[in-house]
């Protein structure tokens, strides 16, 4: 029975993440399902870009997190310095970091070709997202890794003559740490999703047509079609609600992943 629930849970998560999978199906932008072609194309493009942002952010932030967590245990001075820097970064609201990293680049985006602008836009946003997710991610990895290291290092692995670096590598590959890394990845994904959509929303609301068109996101699409909901202007209300429903599905999938890990942690 427990196994069946686990399988159902995994299936539910996959279904809820389907907007990302669908966005990459060839010709997906041409199936309009009764919506204006331009709108449908924007929706598919926004989920495609969001999936790229999430994938790259989790890769970059994950790699930096592991390296920082690893180094901070090997060298305590590095650990203290890193903690102080990340503490300072964490004390600034994430949306401010994104705004100040991204919005000013609008000038550079406008003066480059569309493809260069898109790459530049994604790079700047991934940098901002990585910066804001790092403090919690590094803390989440360094603390349990440090506990494992100081508990097991002296009792068993040291007697085999392992170097400190090798012991850390072994511990990092343990089941406990793999669970921690999975949970860290889910947190990074969720925070980046919220940041990306909130940021696009602000750009759309605050800057409108003068915003940064290279950054496409469901959050911006929701903001662009808000008047369909609030004032009875031309257009289907589905244009507002569709990205909302898809975003709720995706967020809920990440929350489920986090919840599952928390339950496992409780049982351990």
């Amino acid at each position, binding site marked *: 029975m427990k196994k069946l629930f686990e399988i159902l849970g995994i299936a539910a998560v996959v279904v809820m993440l389907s907007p990302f999978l669908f966005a990459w199906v060839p010709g997906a932008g041409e199936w309009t399902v009764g919506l204006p072609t331009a709108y449908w194309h924007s929706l598919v493009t926004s989920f495609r870009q969001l999936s790229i942002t999430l994938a790259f952010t989790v890769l970059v932030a994950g790699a930096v997190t592991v390296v920082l967590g690893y180094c901070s245990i090997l060298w305590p001075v590095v650990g203290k310095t890193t903690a102080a820097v990340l*503490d*300072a970064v*964490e*004390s*600034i*609201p*994430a*949306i*401010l970091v994104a*705004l*100040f*990293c991204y*919005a*000013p*680049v609008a*000038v*550079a985006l406008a003066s480059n070709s569309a493809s260069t602008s898109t790459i530049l836009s994604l790079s700047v946003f991934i940098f901002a997202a990585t910066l804001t997710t790092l403090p919690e991610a590094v803390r989440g990895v360094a603390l349990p890794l440090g506990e494992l290291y100081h508990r097991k290092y002296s009792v068993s692995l040291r007697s085999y003559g392992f170097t400190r670096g090798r012991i850390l590598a072994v511990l990092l590959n343990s089941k406990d740490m793999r669970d921690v890394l999975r949970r860290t990845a889910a947190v990074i994904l969720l925070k980046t999703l*919220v940041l990306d*959509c*909130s940021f696009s*929303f*602000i750009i759309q*609301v*605050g*800057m409108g047509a*003068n915003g940064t068109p290279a950054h496409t996101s469901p*959050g911006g699409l*929701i*903001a662009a079609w*808000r008047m369909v*909901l*609030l004032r009875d202007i031309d257009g289907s209300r589905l244009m507002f609600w569709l990205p*909302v429903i898809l*975003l*709720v599905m995706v*967020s*809920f999938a990440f*929350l*489920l992943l986090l*919840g599952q890990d*928390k339950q496992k942690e*409780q049982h351990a």
Partner: protein
Amino acid sequence: MRFLRFLALELGLRGVVFTLVGTLALVGLYLASVGASADLYLKTLGAFWSMVTLNPDFSLQTAGFSAGEIISSGAAITFPLALVSLLFLVVIALVGASTAASSTYLRTVQGGRRALGLGALGGLLASLLSAVPLFVGFWLLYGSSGMNPSPMLIALVVVVLGGLGWDAARFLTLDMKRQIDTTHTLVFSTLGPAVGRVLPLPGTVTGYLLNSAAPRFIPYVAGKVPAIIGGVTIAEMVFNFPGLGSTLLDALVNMNTDTLIAAVFVLLAVNALVTFLVKSALFVLYPRWYEKAL
């Protein structure tokens, strides 16, 4: 001595220094991004100094908000909104954690199953609610209350639909549940006190659990202050409040560095002040835990 150390670290370093350095760093990043000339850097630095020293000539030539108005709007709108949001966050976490922990306690003592089902359903609903994007909540509020909703409603939406209330309740619940099977709790329960189903009041089992969990919960709350300030800033942009959020965005669009400096500085100062208040609670209530949290 311990008090002086607390003031130097929390008020001096994490308050004043972080706010000043953060303002300079963010505005510097902005100037670098727009390819500002050396003259503009110098002029901006001069404006920053003028603002910090409360020079009455600061931003006199700027159309729109003056620095004084920006500071007033921070004091009058952003700061109270952030405090009320923080209060909602704590109340939601306390009620959620107390309900969940008392259900678990009753289940382990009396073997009831109903509480388990209700708890799971409540958790699922809360997580589903927190998956709704924050700004969608603002638009629904806009649709139902018009352009001028009550600040209390805005604060509630920031906490509930920002996912902060759910996360805080989950954090505190896990901590309190972990302690239910410990010896101290079992000994305490033999005295037969009230359970404390809704609120973890002193003298109840959940009150006792909270007393042990609070030293970890308070630093957690302090860590959530920037997220609250971020949510409040978005609310100010959506509802076009004369607060810091919309001023900041206007300054970015119009490349008005004086207003930008003042808005960022006041936002970071409000952030630092609210965090300082939370950290002060930890220092006063649990000084040993504050030292550990360093």
